């Protein structure tokens, strides 16, 4: 019965290809989204299976100003909750302004199948509205993720984002396959890399890389780059008891810099 109730909460997930990073959370943004194997408060956006073994509750908020354009706002919240043998993730995001607005939600569940292997599935729903009579578009998505711990310091993950359908129209939406790995050097350095294959894109295969350095246990410096968007990113993070505060800046060579902050409560390291 418990599992049935969880299944009832499944909804559709929408991966926004036209959004700059498709990465939410300042930590992930600073790593250009490459650390999809990492436990993260916003893994509901990225790869929920990475957090399948999380025990507890986590509440996170992020906000960013895309390309420094103050008229456009982008914010979201994410909740992770240990439930039964797995973790449920709920995320909500709002992007745009009064003329153009997109909102998306997704709900997913991740379960550890063994000490080393985790699996997740989620559904997302997105609604895009353009003013002046242009109307609305609705989309449903499915996301399946898997994470495998080769060793304590080496992990792999794979995520598939599939557009279930575009409601009310037959527009072809891109599907995406992401494969990533992270390697940890002790407690101090984490290197991450991700390969992204997208259908319906000029460059069908792109890469992102990230480096996370902990000069102290409670402080992190991050760097990332992404070949598809030609962006690079920097960020710092600090942790105090149950609170984490992260800041990132994503730089696009033509469009400018996108600053992002996020605040998390409850996420263990």
């Amino acid at each position, binding site marked *: 019965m418990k599992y049935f109730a969880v299944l009832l909460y499944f909804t559709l997930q929408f991966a926004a290809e036209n959004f700059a990073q498709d990465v939410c959370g300042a930590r992930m943004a600073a790593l250009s989204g490459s650390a999809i194997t990492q436990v993260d408060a916003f893994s509901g956006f990225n790869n929920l299976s990475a957090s399948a073994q999380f025990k507890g509750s986590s509440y996170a908020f992020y906000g960013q100003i895309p390309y420094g354009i103050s008229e456009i706002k982008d914010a979201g919240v994410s909740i992770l909750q240990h439930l039964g043998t797995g973790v449920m993730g709920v995320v909500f995001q709002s992007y745009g302004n009064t003329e153009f607005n997109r909102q998306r939600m997704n709900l997913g569940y991740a379960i550890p199948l063994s000490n080393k292997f985790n699996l997740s599935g989620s559904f997302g729903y997105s609604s895009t509205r353009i003013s002046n009579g242009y109307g609305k578009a609705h989309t449903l998505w499915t996301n399946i993720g898997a994470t495998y711990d080769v060793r304590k310091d080496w992990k792999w993950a794979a995520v598939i984002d599939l557009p279930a359908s575009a409601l009310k129209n037959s527009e072809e939406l891109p599907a995406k396959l992401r494969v990533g790995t992270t*390697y940890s*050097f*002790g407690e*101090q*350095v984490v*290197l991450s*890399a991700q390969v992204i294959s997208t259908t319906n894109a000029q*460059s069908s295969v792109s*890469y992102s*890389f990230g*480096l996370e*350095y902990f000069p102290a246990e409670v402080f992190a410096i991050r*760097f990332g*780059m992404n*070949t598809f968007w*030609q962006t*690079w990113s920097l960020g710092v993070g600090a942790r105090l008891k149950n609170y984490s505060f992260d800041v990132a800046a994503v*730089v696009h*060579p*033509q469009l400018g810099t996108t600053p992002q902050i996020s605040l998390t409560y409850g996420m263990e390291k």
Partner: protein
Amino acid sequence: MEWKSKCLLFFLFGWKGIALFAQEESNGLVEQRIETISSFMEEGSDVDYSSLTEDLTYFARHPINLNTADALSLQSLLILSDTQINALFKHIDYYGRLKSIFELQSVFGMDVPTIRWIQPFVYVNEDDGFSDFSFRRLKEEGTHDIMLRSKRTLQEQAGFIPDPLTGKKNFLGSEYGTYIRYRFQYRRNILVGMTFENDIGEPLSSGPDFKSASLFIREAKALKQLVIGDYQVQFGQGLTCWNSMAFGKSSFSVQVKRNAQGLKPYSSVNESSFFRGAGVTVGNKFISATAFASRRKLDATFNADTVLTDDGMVVSSILLGGLHRTESEIAKKNMLTEIVAGGNFQVQKGMWKLGTVAVQRSLSDSIAARTDWYANGKFAGRTQSAVGMYAEGVWQNVSLFGEVSRSSNNAWAYVTGLTAALHSRVSATVLFRNFDEDFQSVYSNVIAEGSSVFPSNERGMYVSVQAQLSKKVSVNAYSDGVQYPWLRYQVTGPSSFSDNVIQFNYKPDKKHELYARMRIRRTSIDQNILNRIDFPVDKLSEQIRLNFIFSPTESLKLHSRLEFVKTNEEGLPTEKGYLVFQDVIWKKMGVPCTITFRYALFHTDAWNARLYAYENDVLYSYSIPAYYGKGARIYGIFKFDVRRNIDVWFRIAQWTYTDRDFISSGNSMISGFRKTDCTLQMRMQF
């Protein structure tokens, strides 16, 4: 046989074998280091490896004493980072002098691969420079090195074919190029050098076309450096005053930060990148001051201009190739006089340095202003100067460096960065650079995407990471993102550029080594379509290389490579290319002969899809040709140790093209599809 006779026989013959082995081993080590360093370099980068070869060859034969070496000597090896050098000095300060090279394992940041790398070039003992100097010691310990080289292209070039009407050949010299070099060196303190060179086709009627000589003295008490003759200068991070060799972008982090040596004697045959005059550096452990001056002639072409000048002539271009084979090339020889003067003042404490450098250049004739939009802000006139300040230091596990420079037209440029040992197995480098659109460098050599010698109109960030994942696996990667605020050649608008490289290295044991490299570059270039306004479009280049080295026996090494490239310019067909080669290197201990052989096949659709590959060459010569078109490349090098301290090299190399009926153009054109080059070199050391 009595044991005394056996000992005698050993010293007569066995010692020679050991000495030969040691000499072969050091030459092989240096070649291996150069090849490894070049594998990390950006392809096509114009780096003078002969100077690096000379330094490493010297260190291989005269290793550095770790107990008395200064930071500059250790940096010259291009193996140790500043944090590793700093850690070594701190270790010696705290625990006393090293007793054995194996003690390096207890120095922070020194891992086993690094120790193996530096082991051939260092030792642990007492060594003094000038403190025990005497002329007797100078005579006993000084080494002489004479090099003779001759080369020729077997096929006839157009410049050697008599004109059917006049009967004259365009090239006034012979089909042989010659090179003679003499070096005398006493430790690292005294160096005397002379170089004479004649390129193929240059006449010998008035002696060798290129003549160079220098006397260099270093570390003679307060006289830190003295050079008379031909020399180069290196200060700061290369932004204000640096006319010497320097590496460009690389995933090898120790190559990113410049380690300035101040004054350097000139030993290359590049006929333009040196000063001619004198320079001196005086100082002590904390302060040093350098002054230098140069007066030399440059090759130049002139245009008429009655507005700017009284004599009606302005310099339209300065020629750097150094070729004087034809009457027109000879007519441009030494037409321009350049006078350069400059100085540097530096304070230093430990690994921290702060300095200021200035340089001024005056020409006998004005350089013409250029009218192209993209050349807006480029130097025109007779005199230019630049002033800069630089700083560097090591704090904990972080090495910081930077330089800011201002040119005489009030334009600015800066370069700053850091290298951090994040973990004993991970290091990262970050470099920021910003060059104003109209920055007019006098003599620069910085890390830049556009031009390292004339940096301008560029704003970029470069990041590289080196990580040792396990004993056998390591990864090197770099990413460079650049913005060009102003127009560039063939780009009529602000544009951007990105360059991303990742290389995985697998070395399971001493016999096997494998690396895989991937590179993605994205740039902008004008789309030239007839009857349309030029506008920049994206150009994407993707490259994959697989490289395998296998030593089935101690005397045999096999080196294989497979490389692909794909270039796509918006609106144009995709261009592809591949290169595959197999090297065989045979070198058996005790046998005075080394054989190197390569066979390569290549196929590229166009020039954009060209590929570069480092080639073995005779000592102090290097070759990284571009493989483009369709065809094969084959070369062989035979090295003989004729007698003790006399070595002979013979190299023969051939291009065979299947897509053309003539090679090259102009006076260098060869009718046919083959081009064969031969080089014969002899070296004597005593």
